[in-house]
């Protein structure tokens, strides 16, 4: 406040300054009053809308409303054949859909009003549920109201420009570059085999250097003996994989009906369905987009493996094989996507000393 006149330390204020002072006090008190009004109005508004004293109560109410919207939508779509056959009935559907749209907005408001006390995960998943509902409504709209004028105003142009940009982006990379890459790089690994026994022994000279890939295998038994740096697994079906210590990380994507016995510093498992993992791992294994995966401790044996585990920093059982993080289940309760293998169903220790590279039948 750049008020002219005497400095504030002056004892006696001249009349002008006094008037200004009084005016200022009045302004402040007015301001205060209006703020009180506003907050009272806010309070009464929030009292009018349902408020919840616990997260669970909110979630119950939320999912109840969500179910009712879903069933409304289903009902509208159930009437679809009639609507398609007789275009004149479309107008009858329209108010129904508008009602659904209004309830979705209500649901959104409910979430917004209560978001301050919800855990952020619940807010996110609720937001996701709402956007799913909106999408479903969009689909229903386009199916049931075919005669509605296309409105490029809203979503359509956005989508189009987005795909356009994407196409341009993709076109920017000439094909020859990609093929170049494939020619230049054929990293060590087993690929595109069916019903084979595949054995690889890493020599001491190569163990600190290389990565290894298992890709597109079906009904194979894979034995990897010795230490190596990194393992990539992609698209395995009905396979058994037994591997010695990996110094770095293991990345598994798309495995179904497989058994893995692995030791590593880090393990990431994506899109696996029905697979058993016998692990020794220094950090916490993670799963993402998996279902029916089970875990148990590493029980592999071949001559020299103890020493290999030790020098790889994997000599000690950390019990981390059971500390699985599911990125699709960020809650305190146990994820439905994975479990431990009951002791009586676990494989005993597996001895692959006898397996040699001569057994390769690929």
């Amino acid at each position, binding site marked *: 406040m750049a008020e002219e006149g005497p400095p504030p330390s002056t004892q006696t204020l001249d009349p002008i300054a006094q008037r200004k002072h009084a005016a200022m006090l009045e302004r402040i008190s007015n301001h205060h009053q209006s703020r009180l009004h506003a907050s009272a109005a806010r309070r009464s508004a929030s009292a009018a809308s349902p408020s919840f004293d616990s997260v669970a109560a909110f979630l119950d109410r939320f999912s109840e409303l969500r179910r009712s919207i879903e069933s409304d939508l289903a009902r509208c779509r159930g009437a679809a054949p009639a609507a398609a056959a007789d275009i004149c009935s479309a107008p009858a559907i329209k108010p129904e859909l508008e009602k659904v749209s209004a309830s979705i907005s209500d649901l959104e408001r409910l979430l917004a009003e209560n978001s301050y006390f919800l855990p952020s995960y619940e807010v996110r998943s609720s937001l996701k549920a709402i956007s799913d509902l909106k999408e479903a409504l969009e689909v229903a709209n386009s199916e049931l109201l075919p005669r509605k004028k296309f409105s490029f105003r809203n979503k359509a142009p956005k989508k189009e420009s987005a795909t356009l*940009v994407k196409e341009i*982006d993709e076109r*920017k*990379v000439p094909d020859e*570059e990609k093929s170049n*890459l494939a020619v*230049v*790089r054929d*990293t*060590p690994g087993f690929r595109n085999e069916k019903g084979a026994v595949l054995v690889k022994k890493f020599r001491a000279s*190569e163990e600190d*250097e*290389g*990565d290894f*890939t298992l*890709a597109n295998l079906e009904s194979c038994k894979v034995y990897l003996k010795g230490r190596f*740096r*990194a393992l*990539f697994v*992609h698209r395995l079906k009905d396979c058994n994989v037994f591997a010695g210590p990996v110094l*770095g*990380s293991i*990345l598994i994507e798309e495995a179904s009906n497989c058994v893995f016995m692995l030791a590593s*510093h*880090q393990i*990431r498992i*994506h899109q696996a369905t029905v697979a058993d993992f016998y692990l020794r791992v*220094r*950090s*916490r294994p*993670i799963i*993402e*987009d998996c279902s029916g995966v089970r875990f148990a401790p590493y029980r592999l044996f071949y001559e020299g493996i103890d020493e290999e585990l030790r020098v790889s*920093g994997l000599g000690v059982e950390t019990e981390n094989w059971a500390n699985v*993080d599911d*990125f*699709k289940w*960020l809650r305190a309760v146990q994820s439905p996507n994975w479990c431990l293998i009951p002791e009586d169903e676990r494989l005993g220790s597996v001895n692959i000393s006898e397996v040699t590279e001569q057994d390769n039948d690929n």
Partner: protein
Amino acid sequence: MGLLSIIRKIKRKEKEMRILMVGLDNSGKTTIVLKINGEDTSVISPTLGFNIKTIKYQKYSLNVWDVGGQKTIRSYWRNYFEQTDGLVWVVDSSDVRRLDDCRAELHNLLKEERLSGASLLIFANKQDIQGALKPAEIAKVLNLDAMDKTRHWKIVGCSAYTGEGLLEGFDWLVQDIASRIYLLE
């Protein structure tokens, strides 16, 4: 005094820089941060969420935001874009199969307006693994030349495992940011 100039002034005083580390999962982001900070890198779990580290680097204080790269949580990267001075994109140079994903995610990120002024350092990590692509090859596959010409960027080969290349990369990044933010000194 505008908010922006206040922020600038505060930053100048503390010589702070905000660095955002992103990249696909399994690329080595957390390992790089811990290695630079001289911490133990032998037990690192895949990042569920994010880590923040304040690292004294030369005369600057780097606030390094290391954000998890798993697919599920990539959509939350946007929450960390605000006021980013330097962007570090980490690539697993041995994961040839997912380089297409890597390119798509990077170019997606670079469309973000809030990151338009940030210097971009690309770490072609895991160079210690035999068969890893060289930085020049990574640059080609990621199509880095197609980036906006106004972007300050550099690609550096490194190994978070041995530590090689990390300082070279951060030296460049810090210098580049300093020359923009602390221009007047």
